[in-house]
């Protein structure tokens, strides 16, 4: 595994690309704050009833997808090296799921 060349020796700062995982508390707190803000926007947009329905639904979906990417890339560390197969598995699964949803929506509503 080419990406596991880190030992105790370079665990601090000598290899920036591999090290941010161990210093990422701030990074995670920021992501959490942004997630809460995005969630709040979604709830307020629905509660205030001020957004037109045709823009509200896409807006909610976009907010959800951004949050999903946060979960995957920041909290589940998919941004880091060696996650190629993980990404392949997730995107295959998500792709099948998406096709299923589109098929059902088209089938029932059109």
């Amino acid at each position, binding site marked *: 595994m080419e990406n596991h060349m880190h030992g105790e020796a370079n665990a601090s700062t000598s290899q920036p690309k591999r090290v941010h995982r161990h210093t990422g508390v701030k990074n995670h707190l920021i992501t959490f704050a942004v997630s809460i803000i995005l969630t709040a926007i979604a709830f307020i947009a629905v509660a205030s009833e001020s957004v037109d329905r045709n823009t509200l639904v896409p807006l909610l979906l976009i907010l*959800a997808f951004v949050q999903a990417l946060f*979960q*995957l890339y920041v909290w589940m560390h998919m941004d880091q090296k060696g996650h190629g197969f993980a990404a392949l598995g997730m995107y295959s*699964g998500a792709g099948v799921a998406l096709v299923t949803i589109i098929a*059902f929506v088209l089938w*029932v509503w059109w």
Partner: protein
Amino acid sequence: MSAQHAVNGTLPPEPERATLEGRNKVLGFWLFLGGECVLFGSLFATFVALRDQTNGGPTASELFQMPIVALATFILLTSSLTSVLGILAMHRNKLAQMQAWFIVTVLLGAGFLGLEIYEFVEYYHHGHMLTSSAFGSAFYTLVGFHGGHVLFGVLWISLLIAQSYKKRLTVVTAPKFYVASLYWHFVDLVWVFIFTVVYLMGMVE
């Protein structure tokens, strides 16, 4: 190359990837999560297709209460943060800190489940049941399946915490926590789509 870490008493910075078994466990779990995407995708598709078939019963906009959904969402998002803080503590080889964060995660998960049970009982009294309409079946199957995942996660992580008091933090136990944390984030990710597609869009009508 990393097998000696378990022997000499020091933990490598990424203990979950220090052994081949650990790396395989993490990879295998990602592939499992890909399969979970398909499962939840099917349930979402079913729900979206059937959400208006209420058979004369209460509709989504009549049932759903925003405060309780917002609270549940906040609890679950916070538990995702606490579980990742547990993993960061693990990377610094801080066992007690890791245990504390995972205990908080379990408590938040249990709180979420409590809210969900309360919510389902409320809906039941409003005539919204598993067998009352296609909407009911689709709703309880999707949301209940997610709730089942939360319950499983709570039990799983509880057992891991209990085990960690005896087995401590090693290259064998670290992948287990890492994988459980991945699971927990995934459950949270699914909830993001549930509160969006099921609850918020249900309230939009």
